[in-house]
């Protein structure tokens, strides 16, 4: 054991420890300067486009606040979960304990949110979620609010749509994650309870790239239609490979198909139908679309809209209360009247879910998702 190396090692670890402690303390001292809100998004991993959309929504919401001269405009601290639960939990701990954040707007990914729930119950932190749909999140924690409707509604909505299209024999391809499995249960229950039959049911892992054997299976089974409950990147691959393998089938997808990746499949996406929360209507929505168009050169999708709403609601609450005390915000959210969001009215029930949720039908035409028909459900 050479003494120099030992010395180097000991001093190095000392320095590291000091940095450790110092970084912790320095953050503590800067606590009261400005209110910050956190956001745990997907920046990497499957479905990365969600993160980009959310940020755009947040940016526009901040712009809106500035145009209204709101006094309290917080900084947004972003964190990336990469759709990885343990990473999401680590980031949640970092945001809440290192950065001392008490208000989080957006924890993308039902799986990540599920992993954070047990922590949330023991923490004085409020979460206002924009995009998670898993049914089980309803009883996540008393301080968890979301403005995205639960899967249960969407499952039966999709099943009804399929029956309306005259499907009797259907296939179902879903992704093995919290969202996919929740949707699969909803759709399957809704469809089979009303006389439909699921003949091909395939659960795929997130990293699957080669869909050809499932495609052939679907082709061989001669189905009326197919439920495609997978993430956007996978959906793009599915569409391209179905073209190559000659699969022509009426396809209904879940709200994940909103992702831009699907449109990038080009012609292959034409005719693809999916359900997603209603984009909203009225003045708020039009203003938002106009702004979004000006800023990013395209129409906003439901994720951008929902994120915009979540952040706007957060801003309103913060300015109303002039603080980010979680309990105060919670009381505010539960007590408030209907908040007119771009994606429709927002009001919470006692579980922090939306009282009213509206789904809409979309179809891809020329690489763009177009609203088909309005449909309201409670």
């Amino acid at each position, binding site marked *: 054991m050479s003494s120099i190396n030992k010395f180097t090692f000991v001093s190095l670890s000392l320095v590291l420890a000091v940095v450790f402690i110092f970084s912790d303390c320095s953050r503590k001292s800067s606590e009261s300067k400005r209110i910050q809100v956190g956001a745990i998004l997907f*920046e990497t*991993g499957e479905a990365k486009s969600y993160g980009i959309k959310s940020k755009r929504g947040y940016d526009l919401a901040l712009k809106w606040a500035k145009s209204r001269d709101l006094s309290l405009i917080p900084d947004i601290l972003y964190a990336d979960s990469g759709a990885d639960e343990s990473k999401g939990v680590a980031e949640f701990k970092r945001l809440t304990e290192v950065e001392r954040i008490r208000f989080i707007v957006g924890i993308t990914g039902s799986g990540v949110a599920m992993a954070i729930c047990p922590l949330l119950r023991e923490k004085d932190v409020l979460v206002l979620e924009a995009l998670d749909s898993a049914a089980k999140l309803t009883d996540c924690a008393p301080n968890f609010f979301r403005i995205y409707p639960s899967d249960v509604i969407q499952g039966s909505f999709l099943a009804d749509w399929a029956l309306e299209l005259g499907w009797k024999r259907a296939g179902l391809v879903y992704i093995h994650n919290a969202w996919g499995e929740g949707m699969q249960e909803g759709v399957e229950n809704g469809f089979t309870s009303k006389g439909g039959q699921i003949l091909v049911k395939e659960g*795929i892992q997130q990293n699957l790239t080669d869909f*050809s054997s*499932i495609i*052939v299976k679907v082709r061989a089974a001669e189905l009326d239609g197919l439920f495609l409950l997978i993430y956007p*990147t996978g959906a793009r691959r599915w569409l391209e490979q179905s073209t190559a*393998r000659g699969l022509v089938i009426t396809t209904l997808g879940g709200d994940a198909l909103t992702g831009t990746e699907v449109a990038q499949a080009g012609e*292959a996406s034409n005719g693809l139908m999916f359900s997603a929360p209603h984009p909203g209507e009225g003045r708020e929505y039009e203003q938002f679309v106009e702004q979004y168009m000006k800023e990013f050169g395209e129409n906003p999708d439901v994720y951008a809209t929902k994120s915009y709403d979540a952040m706007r609601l957060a801003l309103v609450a913060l300015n109303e209360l002039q603080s980010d005390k979680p309990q105060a915000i919670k009381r505010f959210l539960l007590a408030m009247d209907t908040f007119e969001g771009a994606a429709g009215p927002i009001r919470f029930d006692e579980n922090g879910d939306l009282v009213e949720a509206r789904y809409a039908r979309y179809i891809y035409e020329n690489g763009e998702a177009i609203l088909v028909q309005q449909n309201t459900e409670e």
Partner: protein
Amino acid sequence: MEVFLKSLPAQIANGIIVGAIYGLIGLSMLLISNVMKLVDLLRGDLAITGAYLCFWLSALCGFPFAVSITLAVPLTGVLGLVVERSVYRPLARRSHYAPLVAALGLSIAIQGALQLLFGPEMIGFEQTPPLLPKVAEWGLIRLSRLDVILVLSFVLLTSLLHYFLTRTRLGLGLLAVADDEEASYSCGIARNKVYSFSFFVASSIAGIVGILYGLQYGLEPGAGFGLTIRAFIIASLAGSRGVLGAAIAGLALGVVESVCTGLLGANYRDSYTFLVLLVLLWIWPEGLFGRIQKRYARI
């Protein structure tokens, strides 16, 4: 079951198409694992990097696609050479597993770099859609132009490599180093030259695989890992020196994946491969085309 039997030929055809990619990346791995006796965790990432290079040249720099391929493939080879020189060569002398950490580090770094340069989203070649129309169709089997190109390049590359390894001087030198390094050293075969050369060839092949993979499935920064695992499985199955072994193992892997997915569903897709691998290795411990060399093999 009926549906499965009806779709069986198509599943096998699918398997062959996937297997062509697996076989090629397996070949690339085999060259390296035999010559340098190490586990190369970078194979898939190199392949994906090659594909990104090609994408960059064609879509962003505006070169014609053919030119981009001819530039990107040797560039990937050179990249492999750089990795070999800077990381593997100093480490390979230490132990089989020492390069593993460095390779993992580089793999993470490469993924980060690709993400930084090209964004985290999936990227598709604009050359893909024109290649999708069908060439032939029998029942459920449907071959697109891309499939034909894939299988053809697989056959071509495999036979080229086989010819090269068994008929040319350099190739035989490579085999000699793979067989017995010290003996070949005393025969006057320059070991380092063979290392560099095999890395260049293997990485060039990886580049081609990457481009084919990108055309077929699209590109993502993290796509390399799956390829690496497949390559590793095939190199394990292929036995000590078989190019043909690797080719067949690749096809077999593809077919097993496809047929089992067709029969049993996609839920356990990754397990099928390993189950088959376990059974095969139980029967032929030295791989499909290996020979038992040790006197005390069973102790």
